[in-house]
């Protein structure tokens, strides 16, 4: 037909196409460049303190890497989850309590179950009762934070001593990589990722294309809770006990990490799995760098807030302005 001929015969188009593709690539590469830049910058500022403190910095990255994967799935669908910190706190308590009377695998399972239950509560209110996800999860954040405070009001909940045996870098790194690989493969090489992106890009049309959107949304909230419930195990073997502030602000950390990684807030087709990894590393380098420089918590929060705003401003997808579900 004439249409196809026109396209193939016009070389101008491909030039502009290249330009556009280049702009896209630059945008995609920005977080990675930013990661390298910030890493070098902090090394200069702290006179090599970053490299020597690397293992300390890394010890914090596992929890965020794992937990942000669940939120990544939720955000791909165009939703949000602010209850991650409370899920982490409560699941950590569950792991600690269970570890005293049960085997470690059972304790891990208890953490996962706790997370999944909270996730299903989020999912129920969001999907069945059709309330916007950020409202639902802000409510559950407060609700379960209250429960955590109640459970830890007398004393921090401590785990069994045997948990400490698991606190090795090999285990934490291995588990994290394993979780990420499973997520990566499912997201990029099965229909799971395509379905999620389609829901994020246009839920109604996705439904009409045969995706069981409501079921998917519900299950993703459950999954996300379960993933964070699993990350609670990694958290517990590191800290040993849970206080009333256990898991506090994890949701913000995850959100900042994902946005730093170049994730579009409204989800959809432009989401890349890479966003999780680059973003988490960027966040950890940034926050531990600031700490090594000797900044206090308040100043750090201030700087994090500014960086967050700048990144959102850069990566906001203004073409498809959507309401967050």
């Amino acid at each position, binding site marked *: *037909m*004439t*249409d*196809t001929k*026109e*396209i193939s015969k016009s070389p101008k*188009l491909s030039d*502009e*196409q290249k330009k*556009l593709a280049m702009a896209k690539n630059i945008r995609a590469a920005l977080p990675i460049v930013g990661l390298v830049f910030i890493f070098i910058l902090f090394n200069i500022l702290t006179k090599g303190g970053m490299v020597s403190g690397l293992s300390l910095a890394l010890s914090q990255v596992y929890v965020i890497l794992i937990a942000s994967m669940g939120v990544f799935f939720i955000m791909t669908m165009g939703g949000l989850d602010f209850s991650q910190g409370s899920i982490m706190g409560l699941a950590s308590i569950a792991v600690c309590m269970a570890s005293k009377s049960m085997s470690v695998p059972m304790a891990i399972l208890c953490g996962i179950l706790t997370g999944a239950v909270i996730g299903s509560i989020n999912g129920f209110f969001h999907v069945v009762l059709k309330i916007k996800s950020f409202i639902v999860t802000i409510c559950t954040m407060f609700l379960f934070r209250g429960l955590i405070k109640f459970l830890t009001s007398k004393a921090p909940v401590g785990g069994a001593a045997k948990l400490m045996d698991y606190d090795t870098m090999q285990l934490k790194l291995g588990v994290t990589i394993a979780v990420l690989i499973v997520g990566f*493969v499912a997201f990029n*090489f*099965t*229909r799971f990722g*395509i*379905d999620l*992106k*389609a829901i994020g*890009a*246009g839920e*109604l*049309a*996705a*439904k*009409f*294309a*045969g*995706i*069981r959107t409501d079921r998917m949304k519900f299950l993703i909230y459950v999954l996300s809770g379960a993933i964070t419930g699993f990350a609670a195990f990694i958290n517990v073997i590191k800290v040993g006990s849970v206080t009333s502030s256990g898991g506090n602000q994890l949701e913000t950390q995850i959100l900042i990490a994902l946005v730093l990684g170049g994730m579009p807030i409204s989800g*959809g*087709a432009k989401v890349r799995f890479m966003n999780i990894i680059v973003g988490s590393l960027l966040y950890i380098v940034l926050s531990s760098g600031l700490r090594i420089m000797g900044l206090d918590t308040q100043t750090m929060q201030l700087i994090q807030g500014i960086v967050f705003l700048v990144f959102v401003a850069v990566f906001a997808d203004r*073409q*498809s302005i959507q309401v967050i579900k």
Partner: protein
Amino acid sequence: MSEVRLQVVNLCKSFGITKAVQNVSFNINKGEVHALIGENGSGKSTLTNMLTGIYTIDSGKFILDGKEIHPANQVEANNEGVSIIVQEQGTLSGLTVADNIFLGHEDMFVKAGVKNTVAMHKKAAQLLEEYGFGRIKPYAMIDDYNFEDRKLVEIVKATYFDPKIVVIDETTTALSQEGREELYKHMERIKKQGNTVIFISHDLPEILDKSDTITVLRDGVYIDTVKSADVTEDDLKKLMVGREVSGAYYRTDYDEKISDEVVLEAKNLTVPGLIEDVSFKLHKGEILGFGGLSESGMHEVGKAVFGASFDRTGEVKLADGTQINDIPTAINHSIAYTSKNRDSESVVMNQGIGDNICLPSLKELANKLGFLSGKKMHDFSDKFAKEMSVKMVNVDQFVSDLSGGNKQKVVLARWIGKDSDILVLDSPTRGIDIKVKQDIYQLMDKMRKSGKSIVMISEELMELIGMCDRIIIMKDGKINGELARSRDMDENTLIGKMV
């Protein structure tokens, strides 16, 4: 003899790499209905959207009565004397009829910072009465009215202040005959007042009948401006497409016997408030038409068959006894559906063409372990997009970049890829130009001959008459008669059963 009202001078607009309007110049006179025609993606809507401040101008200018205008939004355009009735829904939900009419111009009712709602309602009631839409109440929520009535409200909104230019963009396709007559009446009135109507439509007989002057665009480039009296439909087609278009549009066969084999049966379908007790059988290789006014419930019938209705009772059963109650079951049992609301229900706008085509076929595309290969998906979607000759850069391009007709081609490519046996096509040619329309009709004929069954729901009576083996007419949610394919059928027979 006639004075120039609007000069379009070297106008350009690009979206990314797509040049939607390229260096277009022409004049529009006072006191005329000036039609803009061209195929999908020829730049008609882009041009008028720039004129009315919906899009910004890349370069070039509009000179209205000797003065250059560059409105930044619709309210500014109104103040310059330009208004538009858009193709899609142009009223805002959650506001009253009066709020919608005076949107952006509430100031005329404001005294000392307080809006005089009573005065506004009074003015709106007076206007509605003048226009002959007295049954629409100014204080009622716009949501209480159907699509058609909301369009009537838009007519009032766009014309009550006697603008110098009124753009009517593809509005008639969404209106019933009655609504169209209302619109034509007001077009005539605007013209009589010495003002100008810019009229965009795909319906060439309508264009020839209602307009004085016709400007043809093709692929964003200006082709020609002609007097309606001097041209025929075939001349226009030739100008639009750039080559001869053969007249045969619809199927040409008659008296073909419909197969006795029933592939789908709907029994007592009821969706509260929309359809009531609808039963019919669909035969193998048949095109079954559904006609009626847009609110007759016929669009809901399509959804009901596809398992997409909320709160449906009654049953939809396939030949093998399978009940269709949800969308995934429908798709897995080879039922396809294209929605009237193409942008929200048929295509995932902010996603690539490739993913859009692959979505229902992911199961077939995955290997035994459930893994998908990017290359396989790419080849699959590329094949069917090319088969439907979707005008695109590549399959990674977002659907939101495409014109209406090309979006529809993507939707059809999706179902051809899925190789569905039963196709429910709701308004398949809505807002689509002749060439693509012809492609779609030919495709339907080909599918029919290969034993696929089609349910075609349409507000265009001519295409129902031209394409269907049987036509079921709906009225007020119920079936109000059935007509068999015949040479002698004309629009009036159908209209008689519709109203």
